[in-house]
């Protein structure tokens, strides 16, 4: 479904990704793990169109997406839940979700999508009229994911969803993400919390200093030095 081939990208004179190649098949859940500063966030920003790659190709369902602006990428079916959630703090929960469905194709199924999101995250239904900025960390993360779901994507990019959350909350969150996955969405998740995320996904890549160092099935990798490496890298 998603394919990156030799992608190189960076900011100004600084290159964050070197010749990165990876694949995500439809229906899969794939993780990209690695230490701080490895380039994981840059990777997702390249895919969602917030940054243009300097080299290589980004292909989604056969369409070349590299270099296209974000609003175009989301129209092709990729939703990005950014690092730090990036909710609209002064808008209510309901309004945030409404914005998630900005695309004409999403608006047509607004009611349906909204019900599904409220079914997955009942606490959001309770807090519909509350300002997003006043929610707790866990609730904000749920809203961010829910907002992404509103655009009716095929692929969801999650950037460090566990960041800043209490361990109990993290467990709940990953549980919810697996339920989202069961709903038929393909997931690409970037995380520092290696142990937890490997229980959730099918495959994983290790990204270190802008390069893919390792890849494999989650079950195998969890056994390995891989895990230790990622932690030591931290």
């Amino acid at each position: 479904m998603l394919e990156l081939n030799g992608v190189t990208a960076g900011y100004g004179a600084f290159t964050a990704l070197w010749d990165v190649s990876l694949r995500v098949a439809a229906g899969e859940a794939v993780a990209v793990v690695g230490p701080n500063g490895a380039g994981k966030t840059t990777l997702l920003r390249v895919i969602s169109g917030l940054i243009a790659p300097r080299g290589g190709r980004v292909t989604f369902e056969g369409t070349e997406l590299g270099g296209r602006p974000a609003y175009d990428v989301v129209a092709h079916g990729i939703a990005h839940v950014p690092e730090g959630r990036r909710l609209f703090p002064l808008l209510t929960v309901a309004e945030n979700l409404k914005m998630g469905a900005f695309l004409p194709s999403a608006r047509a199924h607004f009611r349906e999508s909204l019900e599904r999101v409220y079914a997955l995250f009942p606490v959001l239904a309770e807090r519909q009229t509350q300002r997003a900025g006043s929610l707790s960390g866990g609730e904000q993360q749920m809203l961010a994911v829910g907002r992404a779901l509103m655009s009716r994507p095929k692929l969801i990019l999650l950037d460090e969803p566990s960041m800043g959350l209490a361990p109990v909350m993290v467990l709940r969150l990953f549980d919810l993400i697996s339920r989202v996955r069961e709903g038929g969405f393909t997931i690409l998740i970037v995380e520092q919390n290696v142990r937890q995320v490997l229980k959730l996904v099918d495959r994983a890549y290790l990204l270190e200093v802008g390069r893919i160092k390792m890849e494999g099935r989650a079950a195998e990798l969890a056994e390995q030095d891989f895990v230790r490496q990622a932690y030591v890298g931290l």
Partner: protein
Amino acid sequence: MLDPIFLLEAVVNGILLGGVLALLALGLNLIFGVIDIVWIAYVDLVALCMYAVYFLVTLYAWPLWLAGLVSIGMGALLGVLVHLLIITPILTSPPINQLLATGGLLFFVQSFATLLWSTDHRSVRVAMPTLEVGGIFISFTRLLAFALAILAMVALYLFLTRTYTGTAIRAVSQDREAIALMGARPQRLYLVTSAVGGAMAGVAGALLIIQYAVHPYFGSAFGPLTFMICVLGGLGNMVGAFFAAFIMAQIISVGGVIVSTEMGYVIAFVVFIVLMFVRPGGIFARRA
């Protein structure tokens, strides 16, 4: 001692004035709140719309309501033009350059108006009755302008809260990247904002020409007051500007009756300066 009747009349007139000032301030605030640029020439654009209504009504005998609609459309068009031609090139310039770009527009509009229409003061005389309520006289023109201003503001409120585009405009001022991730184009949202802000100027123009005379320097006369209202309410804060407009209007109206018209403005401006020191972020500043 001043007859309380005159005072009451001044208060009522202050409320009526406040409505129109609020309309002026909201348009400016909308643009600033979203795009983060102060259109120094905003009220000069209002003046251009005033001229349009004036000419349509006096030269071509158009009905006022129709001229008003044209004014709104023209305002929206001016908003779009200003955004495309002047604002877009300077979006990343330092703030002082941004201020000067719209300041240059002020010079341009004022001198262009002088060139085309001389410095004569022009107003649209509307034959409307004066109402008498409980001993005070209220000009129906002012009442109508007030009512229409309130209507326009309600329409703006509904637009910003009930429509996708309106909510997106509020969103883009909070997080530009995030709204792009939802499929909205920030540049397009800015354009719509400028058009809406311009349309508000058009409404204000139509409502002002029936109360005040227009001349090329109208923007310098009402402009500073409009900026002060925006700052007083907290730049970008729509609700704040709404209330600030009425506060300033009251001071101007009552002060105008107690001392003199000009001193009314002076007192209002001095109060503004004092209030800025008491609450530098505006009296309704949000603790952001």
